[in-house]
């Protein structure tokens, strides 16, 4: 295990000094890699570990983004604070969703549909609220300052998103090795068997959902202040929800590093396909590639790419199977 930590520390160091050598454009790609790794990880905490599948996670992104933006534009509240208020709101909404889903025993596909329904309802409702931009969306003013969570260039965003990603990885690892995390896995493996041992499945499912929702919504605030434009169809849309889950699935659900690996694989892919196929505006090609890759992974590498990478690096890193 020690060797793995050294390896990761090395990678982290490289990532920390990289901005000295990269231009704004490439830094921007990294920002997206870290961002998607972060929100993928947040989703992973719910779905990868407890097994409840959410296809409506964009809901929490939107809640975070809109809450902090609205508070900033209306009351001048710094998004750093607004972010946590958004997080709180996301938790409340997720508790409502979880209550309906878990108390009424909605399992499998029914739970998936519930998550989609919640995201869609929110999307439609927000589209009708004038104060939130209604159908035109909100443009954020660009007034860079730390307080405003806005920065010139991409260096600051790079470090912030890197921070988010690293924190998410640490949180996930802590959960995984804790009592809560083990109950979550038990629920995923066999909820009834877990209950027969005394595990309160409802309670721990709710905890996982709450943590996931909170973390995801923080990402929403970051996103809003990086992209400077919010629209309900984007922020709450199924497209975002789907893109969000692809990286953890490709990388490896239910693992600590899977979502990170997945993001490092998929996110650059979209940039490459955009650069090489930009003539004739083959917009959407990267999504076609994502889709095909995802299907292949699910069919042939069900547990994600991480397991294979681990096997590959085993001789050097002496990872061994029981790295828990």
């Amino acid at each position, binding site marked *: 295990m020690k060797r793995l930590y050294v390896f990761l520390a090395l990678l982290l160091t490289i990532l920390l000094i990289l901005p000295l050598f990269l231009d704004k454009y490439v830094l921007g790609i990294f920002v997206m890699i870290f961002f998607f790794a972060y929100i993928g990880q947040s989703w992973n905490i719910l779905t990868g570990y407890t097994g409840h599948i959410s296809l409506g996670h964009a809901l929490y992104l939107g809640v975070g983004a809109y809450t902090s933006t609205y508070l900033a534009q209306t009351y001048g509240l710094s998004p750093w604070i607004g972010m946590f208020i958004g997080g709180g709101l996301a938790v409340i909404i997720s508790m409502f969703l979880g209550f309906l889903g878990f108390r009424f025993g909605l399992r499998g596909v029914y739970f998936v549909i519930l998550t989609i329904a919640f995201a869609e309802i929110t999307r439609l409702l927000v589209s009708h609220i004038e104060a939130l931009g209604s159908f035109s969306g909100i443009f954020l003013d660009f007034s860079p300052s730390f307080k405003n969570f806005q920065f010139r260039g991409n260096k600051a965003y790079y470090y912030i998103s890197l921070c988010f990603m690293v924190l998410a990885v640490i949180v996930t690892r802590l959960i995984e090795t*804790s*009592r809560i995390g*083990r109950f979550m*896995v038990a629920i995923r493996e066999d909820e009834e068997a877990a209950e*027969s*041992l*005394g*595990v*309160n*499945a409802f309670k721990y499912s709710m905890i996982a959902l709450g943590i996931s929702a909170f973390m995801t919504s923080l990402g929403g605030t970051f996103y809003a202040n990086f992209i400077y434009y919010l629209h309900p169809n984007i922020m709450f849309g199924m497209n975002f929800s789907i893109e969000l889950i692809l990286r953890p699935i490709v990388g490896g659900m239910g693992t600590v590093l899977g979502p990170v690996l997945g993001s490092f694989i998929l996110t650059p892919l979209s940039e490459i396909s955009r650069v090489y196929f930009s003539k004739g505006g083959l917009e959407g090609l990267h999504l076609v590639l994502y889709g095909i890759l995802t299907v292949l992974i699910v069919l042939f590498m069900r547990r994600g790419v991480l397991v294979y990478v681990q096997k590959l690096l085993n001789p050097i890193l002496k990872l061994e199977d029981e790295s828990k």
Partner: protein
Amino acid sequence: MNALETNALSKSFGGLKAVSDLDLSLGQGEILGLIGPNGAGKTTVFNCLSRFLPMDSGQTIFYGRDITDLKPHVVSQLGLARTFQIVRPFLTISVLENIMVGALVKEKSVKKAKAQSMSILELVGLEDVKDRPASELPLPRRKRLEMARALATKPKVLLLDEVMAGLNPTEVDELIVLLKKINRQGISIFLIEHVMRGVMALSNRVIVINYGVKIAEGPPDEVVKNKQVVEAYLGKEFLSAQG
């Protein structure tokens, strides 16, 4: 005070009355056997006792406390543990981690839970596979895992559902030894069993049910000779052929 008792337990599925008006009690430190032909309603009894199914009528009392309306996980936390007829291991995690899930219910510290799980591992004889994923275990060892997991929750009563099914005679004997050991630690055992050797060797008392109704109760050697019991298992023709 009995460890576990139930009065007038009844359960129907649609029009079919699976269990009718059953009374039973398990004394502290006792081993009670539940036998009967297939479809007699034995697993239904267990499911009702452990609160996986709601009873239509009747009461279940655990160490003097009415648990009739409690949730399954609460009942388990109180000390009533069960295994499943078709074993349900947590397949993708290791044997040790499986047991730790049980241990962590009562033990908050992961470190201590791990230590407790290790000793249970040794008790059931699974140390050599402690880090293998549960999916790699063959059936007899999965049964041991299921029991180990239940034991880790520090139960006062253990409900075992056909733990000897599918085992060869040597394995049955080993299991009998293990169960006696567990019982000596103070855990009352209620077991559903088809393997008669196990029932005879372990039970202080045996209850026989057929079509959801109790037809006999008493020490194992008496019950086995009971005419009604023989008829239930082997049919009227056999009985009349005996004369």
